[in-house]
Structure formats: structure tokens, C-alpha cells
């Protein structure tokens, strides 16, 4: 027996896992954030709040802050109204082809919003927009009727591609909601209008607000749309201002410092938004979730049925199909600005994409960076979630805090943090190499991985692992033979949940790319900036094809995986 006396002190699996988790979170997340805060608030080693105030009150940065706020607020309001309306239409009315429509409303998610913005700029820019020119010709107008390159335009385009956030939340809540809540109101004598107003709406309000906050969070730190539609006209929001400052000064410390101060504001707003959302969802959960398989009260649309269906289809046509076609057509033009006629079209651009160095590199960079980052992030995220969900130890709250930190770090902030941490300060200089983007992607998508793995881990009852230990398996063996096989489907979907957005990433990559390390998003953006609109559109078309094929095949694959997991699911979470 004495031989095993040392048992307790030995470095076992749980300690190794714990140490690694802390190490990863500190290196990838905590250090960059700390460096941002230090750079923002300390000048020459001294705490300097006056300097911060001075930079914030500079009209240039102040205007960017204000714009960010206006764009985020506008986008949130418009997306929320549209998302809630369409969700209600799909979940609570007798709209025809409901399931198809529901799937269609999620398609805008697939179209990267900066590609959408690019298409809309082609169509509605005041000087050369095709639709503007067409309308001016038809009605003999002096001035272009639409100006997409304005605050209003940015809000409209962002809303088009962000409203599914609200749609998903609200449709989900409406479907899960216990119908007897509404039925009892009906028995009490309320009509459908009253029920919608007094029962349904208040009950799904937490979900509506949660969706709205998600949109706000995204829009506040969104780079693509304002960059494409605003920069030319001098309209900047926080991320585009940071980008402009850093690039116009060639990465000077002064510019980076302004960036860190603006980033701090982004981080604080993001943290506040997430806190609010968390509170709302907690409040909403117990009210809404209830029995399944019951039929909710459905509003008969009667005469409005087909007009509303038509509106929905037209809406999707305008927001998804029209921009997609535009991008494909522009990508096929011999020179940008020519009318869309067959004699001006060519397939050359598409073929050249795979030969031309910039675009070829970009496609290859995006693919290996996203696959690599997705794989590493998935593994690290799984390990960290295991520590957070399953392990008990003192000081766990610190790790929990570090674990939620990635959620409140907008892409711009991560890019800046990574620049500060990996440009030689600690003896490692990754700047201008693909590795800096790789590290940034890990930080950016760590939140996804943690969320997804935590969800599948919390469904694996503790007793399954304990049963393994009781059967004689060591901690490591029971992890390998029991826990890992059970959460493998969750890990696979986490991998793809990271891979798909990483393939089209722009916000973070745009601050980190070097001459040979453009990603697809960066290449499209910079080509367009350099006036190579046709090439940008051609690359965007290829990107759209990759995204579309990827999304649909992966969704099918994941659905199959889920089906197979379902039979396992049945007993994974027997009530304890």
C-alpha cells in the first residue's frame, strides 16, 4: 500500500489539462487584452487618462464613435423589426410553404455582408450604380435617386444580412413556447390580436431582445460594410477608423494607441451587451420552454396569404438573389462600367483567378488557415470546456472568466491585441507571416469552440465517466474511451462552425495581412479598393460558390451526424 502513497501528489491528467487550459487562455486571450488596456491607458509608463480623453474628443475619432453608434442602433432596430415579423409569419401564421420559407430566410447568413455591400455599391452607388443609371435614364432624372454610400445605406445593407440573428432567436422561441399559454388566454375570451399583444409578444420579448443585442454586438464592431460603402465618402466607424489610422501611418505606435483606446470602448460595450443578453435569456428560458409536439395557435391570413408570401419571396430575391447575380455578372465583365451585354462579357476573369498570384494565394491562404485554426481551436476549446464544465477546483471562476472573455472580443480588437503581443515584444515576431492570422483566428473563434463543446459536454452525465473510473479505468482512459467518443459529434460540428466563418473572415485579417498573406476576404476588399472591381467580383463569385457548396454539404453532413447521435442522446442525459 505504501507504494501508492504518492498517488495524491502525482501530476495526473486533470492537472495537465487544467494547466494547458490556463496557458492557452492566458497566451491567446488574456495577454493581448491586457496589452491593449495597458497601451490605451499608459503612456511612457505612466497612467494617462487625460491622453485618452484627448484622443476621444478629437473630432475625427469622436465622429467614428458616433457613427458606430448610429449604425449599430439603426441596424439593430431595422433587423429586429424585420426578424420578428418574418419569424412570426413563419411560426404563427398559415403562410404557405412554411418550411421552405424558413430555410430561405436563413440564406442571407450565407452571403458574406461585405460581398453583399460590394454588389449593392455596384447597383446603387450615386455615380455609377447600374440601377441608379437605369432609373435616371427611364425617368430623365438629374440626380441619382439612391445613395447607398451613406449612413442610411450602410444601415440598410447591414440589416439585410444581420436580421437572421433575430429571426432565428424569435422563431425558435415561438416554436418552443407552450401553446397552452395562448390557449388559456383564448379560453378566457381574448381574441388573437389581444393574445399576440398581451401574451405572445411579452413571452418572446426576451428572445427578441437577445437577438437584437446580438445584432448590435455584431454591427458595432463590423468592418466590411462600412469599409466598402463608407470609406470613400469619409464615413468611418470604429473598426474602419482603426484600419485607416494604422494603414495611413504605416503601423505607427500613435495610430496603434488610438486603435487600442477605441478597442477598449468596443470591448466594454461588447461585455455590457453580452451581460444584458445573458440576463435576458435566463429570464426568458423558463417562461417559454415547455411541451413539444403540440400545435400552436395559428393566425389565418386569409386574403393576405399570397400577398405576404409574394412579399417574402421578393424580399429574399432582392437581398440574396439580386446581389449574387450582380456579383457573378460583374465578375464576367471585360471592364468595370460596361453594360451587362453578352459582347462585353468574358469567362477569362474566372479562369485567371486560379492563375493570378494574389487571388490564388488568397484562396490557398484562407483554406489552410481556416482548416488549421478550426482544428486547433476545436481541440483547445474542447479541453477548456472540459475543465469549465466537469472539473471542480478552487479558483475555477478565474478560468470561467477567461473562458467567456473571447465572446466579448470583436475581431478588430483581437487583431490589435495580436499585433501588440506577437510583433516581437516577447521575442517572437509573427508580423507579416500567416502565423499571426492563425493565432488571431484561434482567439477569434475560441468562443465558438467553447460554446459548442460545453453544450455537448454538459449533456454527458457525470456518472458515465464515474462508471468508467469505478470499472477500473484511469482518468485518462475514461476520457479517451467514454467522454471523447460521446462528444465527438459536438467536436465535429464545432470544427465546421469555425471553418465556415473563418473562410470568409475579413474584419480581423484585414489588419494583419502582409504582402503574401491575403485571405479571400482581404483580397476581395483590397482589389476593390485598388479599383479592380471586376477581379474583386470574380473572386467574390468563387468565394460564394465555395461558401454555398460548403454550407449545404456540411449542413447535410451535420444533420446526418446528429441523427446518428440522437440514439446515443436518448440515454446520455437520464435525469439524475
Amino acid at each position, binding site marked *: 500500500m505504501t507504494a501508492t502513497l504518492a498517488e495524491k501528489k502525482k501530476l495526473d491528467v486533470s492537472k495537465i489539462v487544467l494547466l494547458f487550459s490556463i496557458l492557452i487562455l492566458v497566451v491567446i486571450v488574456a495577454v493581448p487584452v491586457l496589452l491593449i488596456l495597458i497601451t490605451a491607458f499608459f503612456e511612457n509608463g505612466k497612467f494617462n487618462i487625460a491622453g485618452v480623453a484627448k484622443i476621444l474628443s478629437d473630432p475625427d475619432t469622436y465622429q467614428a464613435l458616433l457613427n458606430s453608434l448610429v449604425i449599430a442602433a439603426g441596424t439593430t432596430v431595422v433587423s429586429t423589426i424585420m426578424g420578428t415579423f418574418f419569424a412570426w409569419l413563419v411560426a404563427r401564421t398559415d403562410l404557405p410553404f412554411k418550411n421552405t420559407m424558413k430555410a430561405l430566410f436563413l440564406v442571407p447568413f450565407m452571403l458574406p455582408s461585405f460581398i453583399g455591400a460590394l454588389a449593392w455599391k455596384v447597383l446603387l452607388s450615386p455615380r455609377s450604380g447600374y440601377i441608379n443609371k437605369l432609373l435616371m435614364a427611364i425617368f430623365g432624372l438629374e440626380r441619382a435617386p439612391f445613395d447607398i454610400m451613406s449612413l442610411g445605406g450602410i444601415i440598410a445593407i447591414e440589416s439585410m444580412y444581420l436580421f437572421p440573428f433575430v429571426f432565428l432567436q424569435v422563431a425558435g422561441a415561438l416554436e418552443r413556447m407552450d401553446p397552452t399559454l395562448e390557449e388559456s388566454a383564448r379560453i378566457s375570451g381574448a381574441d388573437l390580436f389581444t393574445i399576440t399583444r398581451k401574451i405572445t409578444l411579452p413571452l418572446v420579448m426576451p428572445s427578441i431582445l437577445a437577438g437584437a443585442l446580438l445584432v448590435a454586438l455584431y454591427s458595432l464592431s463590423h468592418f466590411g460594410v462600412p469599409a466598402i460603402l463608407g470609406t470613400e465618402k469619409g464615413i468611418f466607424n470604429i473598426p474602419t477608423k482603426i484600419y485607416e489610422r494604422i494603414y495611413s501611418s504605416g503601423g505607427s505606435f500613435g495610430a496603434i494607441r488610438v486603435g487600442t483606446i477605441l478597442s477598449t470602448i468596443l470591448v466594454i460595450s461588447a461585455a455590457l451587451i453580452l451581460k444584458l443578453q445573458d440576463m435576458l435569456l435566463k429570464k426568458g428560458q423558463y417562461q417559454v420552454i415547455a411541451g413539444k409536439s403540440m400545435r400552436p395557435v395559428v393566425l389565418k391570413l386569409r386574403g393576405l396569404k399570397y400577398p405576404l408570401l409574394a412579399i417574402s419571396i421578393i424580399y429574399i430575391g432582392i437581398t440574396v438573389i439580386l446581389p449574387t447575380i450582380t456579383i457573378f455578372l460583374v465578375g464576367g465583365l471585360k471592364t468595370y462600367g460596361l453594360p451587362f451585354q453578352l459582347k462585353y462579357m468574358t469567362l477569362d476573369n474566372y479562369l485567371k483567378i486560379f492563375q493570378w498570384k494574389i487571388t490564388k494565394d488568397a484562396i490557398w491562404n484562407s483554406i489552410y488557415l481556416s482548416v488549421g485554426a478550426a482544428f486547433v481551436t476545436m481541440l483547445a476549446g474542447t479541453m477548456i470546456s472540459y475543465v469549465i464544465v466537469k472539473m471542480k477546483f478552487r479558483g475555477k471562476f478565474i478560468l470561467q472568466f477567461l473562458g467567456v472573455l473571447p465572446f466579448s472580443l470583436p475581431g478588430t480588437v483581437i487583431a490589435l491585441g495580436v499585433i501588440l503581443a506577437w510583433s516581437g515584444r516577447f521575442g517572437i515576431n509573427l508580423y507579416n507571416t500567416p502565423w499571426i492570422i492563425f493565432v488571431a483566428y484561434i482567439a477569434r473563434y475560441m468562443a465558438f469552440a467553447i460554446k459548442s463543446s460545453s453544450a455537448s459536454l454538459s449533456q454527458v452525465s457525470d456518472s458515465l465517466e464515474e462508471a468508467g473510473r469505478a470499472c477500473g479505468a484511469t482518468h485518462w482512459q475514461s476520457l479517451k474511451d467514454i467522454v471523447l467518443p460521446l462528444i465527438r459529434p459536438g467536436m465535429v460540428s464545432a470544427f465546421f462552425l469555425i471553418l465556415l466563418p473563418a473562410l470568409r473572415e475579413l474584419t480581423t485579417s484585414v489588419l494583419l495581412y502582409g504582402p503574401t498573406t491575403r485571405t479571400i476576404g482581404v483580397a476581395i476588399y483590397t482589389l476593390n479598393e485598388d479599383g479592380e472591381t471586376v477581379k474583386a467580383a470574380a473572386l467574390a463569385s468563387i468565394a460564394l460558390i465555395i461558401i454555398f457548396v460548403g454550407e449545404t454539404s456540411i449542413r447535410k453532413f451535420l444533420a446526418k451526424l446528429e441523427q446518428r447521435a440522437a440514439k*446515443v442522446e436518448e440515454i446520455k442525459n437520464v435525469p439524475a
Partner: protein
Amino acid sequence: MSQLELIDVTKRFGEVTAVNRLNLRVEKGECFSFLGPSGCGKTTTLRMIAGFEDLDEGELKVEGSVYSSSYKKFYLPPEKRDFGMVFQAFAVWPHLTVRENVAFPLRIRHRPKHEIDERVKMALTSTNLLKIQDSYPGRLSGGEQQRIALARAIAINPKVMLLDEPLSNLDAKLREEMRFEIKALQKKFGFTIIYVTHDQAEAMALSDRMLVMSNGVVQQVGKPLEIYHKPANRFVFSFIGLSNFLPVSIREGAATIDGTDRIAARGAPGDLGSRAVLACRPSDISFVPQSEAEHGSSESKPAVPGLVVRRTYLGDIVDMKLKVGNAELRVQKHVKAASPREGERCFIRFNTVLWYPEEERNR
């Protein structure tokens, strides 16, 4: 040498003492139950025996060897204890077939293939699972999953089997069947069982000895019948079956229920003082004809008058609520036995009574 020995075992969670100075010896081949309401510390004790929880104080010995000890700062991890364990939620692994589940503990121990085959077959045969050995547990019923968990636990022929409320996720009929199966398995293989439950009937039916716990403190240890007939205190009395507690005044060993002037029972122990509580099971009360009650000799047991306030049928049992003096009590009789109607006055006699002090210190 006892199979299992717990010495001053204590476990705290923050401010709460989940288990307080528990001492116990369990002998080889014994079936021993921990009985108590939820949160009483019985599962925590079991998990300390299994090795999933460390002891804050005390020592755990198995066949004389120390397995956990706060004094020696030692603890043997669960996988080295060679115990079998069945969890409340079964914890059968959904990604492995029935056979693979049962073979797991043997594979982990790197037993030779022929031995694995042999032992798995033995375990599956004893639990009637041979026919479905290649199915995945997800499609099987609760009873079948439970048997997989049992088969997996007996596969290595463990020194001790730990069962944590193994039947509470099953329906009533299945529960009864499984109870006999567990008992039969134990008879066949002769392992020691530690069985945790909150169901007193289950504990009574299975155990050689049992322990009643409340708030982390042992209330009584003994054979089931001993505990049933001589509960150490009011908590045990009320936990082990239906109970009536009547406040009484005592004079020269004779008790009067408050609000009556007739003697209800004699033989109260002298050390109780003038006030006490008379405890009696609803089935231990009989109805007495008025004539016998009024002319009963001083030798026979006394009878007191009561009024039937409520009368309900519970299958083949009639359950009555009676008002006697200021007190209310329950009486249960077989449907076929004569009993008064609702609203009727009657006389009752306490056949078996137990005495407890009026103020019971919370142990």
C-alpha cells in the same frame, strides 16, 4: 477483519457538514443499506467509499488496508479500488454495445481474451442479457439498461458492490422484480453490497443490516426488523413506516392523551418524566366494542374513545382519521375487518406502543 471499515468519516461542503463522524463496519458477504431522506449524506458516504470524494476527516479501510485516510493524507483513486458500482442513472455508455459495456472493466485490466469472454458470458447470463448483447443501450428499456449496469459491475467479481439508488428510475413493478434479482445475484456470487436508497421497503427487503441517516448523522444501525420494531428515535420511527405521535401526560407509568381523562396506555418507562410522546403505527390500533372498553379489567389493555373524522379506501385497506381528545391519529384496517363509519364514535386500543421524550434533541 471487516470487509469495510469507516472510522470517524466526515465530509464538509463549504459550511454544510454532509457526513459527520460516521463509524461503521460491514462484514464480508453482507448486504448493507444506507437509508435516509434525500440530502441526508448517504450518497456522499457511498461516493467516499467509491473514491469519488475525498474524506475531510477519518479513515476508510477495506479488508484491513487503508483506502482513504485524512490522517495519512492518502487516497486510492476509484479505478484502483476494484469495486463494482451501479449508478442511479445507470450510466451505461451509449456508444458501446451491451457486450462492450460489460467487457469494459475487464479490458481495462488487460485480462486475457478467453477470460474476458468467459466472464462477460457469465455476467450476461446471470442478468438475462445474452440475447441482446449486440444491441446499443439507447434502444433498450430502463430495466434492461439497469441490468447492463449490474452485469458490468459484477463482471470483475468485485470485493464490494456499491449501488446508488439503482431502482429509483424504474417503475414500481420492475422495481420489485429487480430487487429480487439483485438479491439472487448476491446469493450466487457472495459479494458484499452497499446499497443506498430512500425507500424503506426496498431497504427492508434487501438488507441483512441497515443504517438510517439524517442530516449527516447516523440515527440507528441494525437488522431491518430490529429497526422496525425498536426505532431508536422519533425520526427513525417516522421514516420507517406510517406513524402516529401523540402528546401524553404520564402518572405512575400510565399515559393520558391530552384532552381526555382515560388512560390510553400503561408501561411508560420511569425516566420519561410527566410529559412524553406515545408512538404507534396505524395498523397497530384496534377497535374495541363499547361494552368491553367500559368493563375492561385493569389487567387488559385500556381503551380510549374517539371520533372518525374521515374514512378513505386505499385499495384493500381502509384509512381512517380519528380525533382522540386534542389529538388526531390515523388507523388502518383491512377492508374485510369491521370498522366504524365516518362520523361515528368508537373505542380504540393501542396494541403496541413506543415511548419517546417530549422534546427530542435534534441529533
